[in-house]
């Protein structure tokens, strides 16, 4: 018999308690993996939006907490394009709409000028791209088109105006596939933001950090009123309030789940040590060192927490995949969880196990054999 077999048998002898504790850990770790996974996926997808198009700089209104309310003059893009070292500039208006009647919420809608280079990056899978004069035309991402059951030629009401689907596109990005695109001018009009854009994405000829930082300063200098802020795309994404809020909520919920998981583990291990006081006394009497008793308790906790972590992680992956396939959230949640988040989940499970078992192990190690054997 190996030592871990012995530890395993200790756990198996109290099946219900072991299963319930494992479930508690699974829920805690599952919550962490799912929530942090979704929020980090949210950030990753946003980064990917710019990264894969080699976008270097995002320009928006300075000092705004919510970037969606950012308003710049639509001609500001032309000024940026005139700077030496700038390869391309895309201007756009961005907002989120909900198609409540269809049960789809938080759909990203973008308005681009008809000559925007970003149109060239869209893979049109059905219909055609938007052209000049398509004022009531709209492009749908593939996921959104599927969820709305729309195809080119179909009508879609947006801001109480009827649009005609002219094409369906597919890109590498989950949010874009769940979003829609119109021409800039009609969207400005519908949103009451004529001549305004939310921001500009800038592609430089050179992508090294010093060049990017210098260009940010040059772009800021283009606005004598100092109301414009240019920043590297990573910085822009990470400072986006929606992403920050999602991450904060994910971690807050996770911390609560972890506290509950830790208390559950602590309760189980304390009870387990208390119930086995005499048994631990016997083990000490037959020569077990204190350190072996501690190892036994910690190993039991680690086995419990890692199994719980595995179950929780698998459940979180399954849940995320399931949610990503639901029309109401498809296009907001990617089905994949970053392996780093999964590792983080296991790390947290291990930590919960060790913290929850530390006191019981200490208590068990301090037991005097004779006192423990006398324990009723």
């Amino acid at each position, binding site marked *: *018999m*190996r*030592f871990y077999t*012995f530890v395993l*048998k*200790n756990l*198996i*002898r109290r099946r219900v308690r072991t299963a319930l504790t494992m479930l508690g850990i699974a829920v805690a770790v599952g919550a962490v993996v799912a929530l942090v996974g979704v929020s980090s996926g949210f950030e990753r997808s946003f980064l990917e939006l710019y990264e894969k198009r080699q976008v270097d700089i995002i320009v928006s209104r300075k000092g705004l907490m919510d970037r969606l309310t950012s308003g710049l003059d639509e001609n500001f893009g032309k000024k940026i394009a005139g700077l030496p070292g700038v390869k391309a500039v895309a201007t756009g208006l961005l907002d989120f709409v909900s198609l409540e009647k269809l049960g789809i919420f938080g759909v990203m809608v973008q308005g681009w000028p008809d000559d925007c280079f970003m149109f060239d990056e869209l893979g049109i899978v059905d219909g055609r791209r938007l052209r000049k004069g398509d004022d009531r035309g709209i492009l749908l991402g593939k996921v959104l088109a599927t969820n709305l059951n729309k195809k080119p030629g179909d009508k879609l009401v947006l801001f109480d105006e009827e649009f005609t689907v002219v094409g369906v596109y597919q890109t590498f990005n989950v949010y874009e596939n769940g979003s829609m695109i119109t021409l800039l001018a009609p969207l400005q009009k519908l949103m009451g933001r004529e001549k305004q854009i939310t921001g500009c994405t800038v592609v430089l000829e050179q992508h090294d950090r010093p060049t990017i930082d210098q260009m940010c300063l040059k772009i800021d200098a283009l606005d004598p009123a100092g109301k414009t802020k240019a920043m590297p795309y990573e910085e822009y994404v990470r400072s986006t309030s929606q992403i920050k809020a999602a991450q904060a909520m994910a971690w807050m919920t996770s911390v609560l789940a972890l506290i509950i998981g830790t208390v559950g583990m602590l309760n189980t291990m304390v009870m387990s040590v208390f119930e086995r006081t*005499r*048994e631990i006394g*016997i*083990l*000490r*009497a*037959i*020569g*077990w*060192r*204190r350190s*072996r008793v501690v190892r036994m308790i910690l190993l039991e906790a680690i086995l419990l927490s890692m199994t719980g972590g595995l179950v929780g992680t698998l459940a979180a992956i399954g849940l995320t995949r399931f949610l990503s396939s639901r029309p109401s959230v498809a296009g907001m949640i990617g089905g994949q969880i970053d392996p780093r988040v999964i590792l983080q989940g296991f790390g947290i499970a291990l930590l919960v196990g060790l913290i929850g078992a530390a006191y019981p192990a200490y208590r068990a190690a301090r037991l*005097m*054999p*004779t006192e423990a*054997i006398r324990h009723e």
Partner: protein
Amino acid sequence: MSDSGSNTVLLRTENLCKVYPDGAVNALVEVSLTIHQGEYVAIMGPSGSGKSTLLNLLGALDAPTSGEVYFLGEPLSAVCSLDRLRSQKVGFVFQSFYLLPVLTAAENVQVPMFETSLSASARVKKAIELLGIVGLQHRARHLPGQLSVGERQRAAVARALANDPILLLADEPTGNLDSLSAEGIFDLFAKLHRERGMTIVLVTHDPEFGHRAKRLVQMRDGHVISDGVLPPH
């Protein structure tokens, strides 16, 4: 030198006193005793006479309030790892067996061996051998709940022998056994003493079994009231 043991003093107690934390009971009062290697000693006395307390102190399970226990000449108060001493030199047999219910007889015997460098396969082999010595090889894969009380105590004796101790301490080893099973356990102790030269110190209530030892220590109210060699049984 003891009549039944060797010249080597295995255990010596010097003015051993034990007062339990509540301070109400003087469990042991100035007990001085010498036990040679290879002796077979029975400690008898009424309940509360201090015999189990003495056994616990001899086995380094507890510390005296005053006085000293010497194990092979070394004071236990100076031993840095009593756990190791218990693991390597002492085997314990308890009245209630205290076998772990989820482990088979063979697995129970292996539990003390975790403190040795034996491999897993060597532990299994040794456990089976020890169960053979106590006549329980055929029950090696049975759980304690599937064994008779006598068999459980035999398994507990095999566990006590797991790390080849030089001292076997038994606290009322037949207290929970029927007379037939008790007879078997005492025969086993006699065999271990005879064939292995093992030093055995046991506590018993039963005068019949007490007199099967080679030396009888009688206690009352924490004092040793008599200590003498018994005639051959």
